[in-house]
């Protein structure tokens, strides 16, 4: 009887005990990051202006070419008349014939030169058009992004429209060097770093209060879902 009572007491006490073991303890820690989109707005504007200028220049060259061809046609007609006169026995027209031949030759050389310029400008215009189509697709190839604090880089092989970048967990300043088409840009962000313990008993870093400190892009815009810009919820758009 005593042993039964004792056992019941023991079981009652064991019921009171509780465990708080973590679940999925082997999962890796999520790193605080931001999403960055790079828009080549400046190049798009410049290319549009260049294309327009190049189009005007092409029109002008074409007009000049047309004028020269008309002039050459007129000179050719005149040459025919002069040659008829010379064949009729008017040898005094021979100096005019020589001048007309030289003038037609000069026009032909100029027309050929202008034609070459038109061909070159047209190929440049087509190249501009191709680049503009690529920019308008919203996809930019970033060569690499470097953490200036430790010189570690992420290299990219494919164009993507949004890059996910780990923030600096060691300091409240994240300083990135972004290389696009052999051109380097700086992007510096300030933020608050806070240690916290997650549900899996991992100590991790939470980053919030993200703000643009300085940059060398044409413009940078920050978009937060919440008032206190938190990592993993913040999107930054850089125009260059």
């Amino acid at each position: 009887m005593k042993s039964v009572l004792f056992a019941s007491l023991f079981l009652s006490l064991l019921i009171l005990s509780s465990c708080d073991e973590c679940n999925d303890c082997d999962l890796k820690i999520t790193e605080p990051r931001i999403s960055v989109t790079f828009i080549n707005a400046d190049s798009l504007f410049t290319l549009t202006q260049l294309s327009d200028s190049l189009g005007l220049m092409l029109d002008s060259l074409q007009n000049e070419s047309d004028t020269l061809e008309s002039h050459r046609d007129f000179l050719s007609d005149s040459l025919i008349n002069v040659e008829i006169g010379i064949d009729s026995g008017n040898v005094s027209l021979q100096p005019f014939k020589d001048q007309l031949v030289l003038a037609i030759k000069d026009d032909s050389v100029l027309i050929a030169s202008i034609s070459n310029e038109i061909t070159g400008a047209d190929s440049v215009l087509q190249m501009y058009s191709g680049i503009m189509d690529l920019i308008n697709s919203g996809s930019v190839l970033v060569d690499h992004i470097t953490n200036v604090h430790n010189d570690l880089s992420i290299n990219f092989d494919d164009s993507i429209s949004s890059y996910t970048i780990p923030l600096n967990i060691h300091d409240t300043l994240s300083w990135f060097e972004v290389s696009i088409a052999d051109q380097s840009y700086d992007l510096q962000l300030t933020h608050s770093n806070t240690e916290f313990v997650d549900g899996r008993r991992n100590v991790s870093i939470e980053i919030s209060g993200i703000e643009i400190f300085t940059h060398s892009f044409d413009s940078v815009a920050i978009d937060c879902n919440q008032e206190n810009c938190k990592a993993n919820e913040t999107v930054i758009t850089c125009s260059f």
Partner: protein
Amino acid sequence: MKRLLPVLFSLIAVAVQGQNDTVEVHRKPFTPRLYWDYGKTALSWSNFETKTEFGLEILLFERIQLIGEGGTATLKPEKAFQNVEYTSQGQYFRIGAGYLANLSAKDRIGIGVRYGISNFEDEGLVSIDFQSDLNDVYTSQFNRKDLNASWYEIVLNSERKVHLNRSNPESILNDIFHIGFLFRYRVLIEYTDQQPIDIYTIPGYGRTLDKRLPAINLFLKVNLF
């Protein structure tokens, strides 16, 4: 508290049952007793903890226990955090009282309460490897001193006389040594909580994640005179 009721009822039942079966003997009015938690000492070989605990008991009329306990502990729980080398160390003391009832000529069972305090410090080395291409491994340290905690305990005590002289049941040697265990149900009152990384374990109490915590101590008890 509702969950405690069946426990208390069971304890009372055991004590009453023990009283009924008790063989009447002459009761010494004053018996000082010293006990050693050999279970804690035995576990000190592990890398996770080093503990030493002793207790002094004044047994009045072989029924009423007045108890003081003290110990030191260095705790290095592996599962404290996934990425922190954590250590908590310090001293703790408990005072309390209890009631002992005879189950037989050799066995006793009792119930009691304790109030415990602990003064300790903890430290940790945080190491975070985010597997990132842009960040090095993150490390930081913390070292927090002069931390305090208090709790109370409901204690079930069971002990058995060790008969060193079996040939003479009346020998005084048979009344000196006792072995037994203490089943403690601890309820945390307060502690100096820390942020963002809170104290994981308190010497003398246990994990702070559990505000109520059961524990078992094994002891060797000696009647001093």
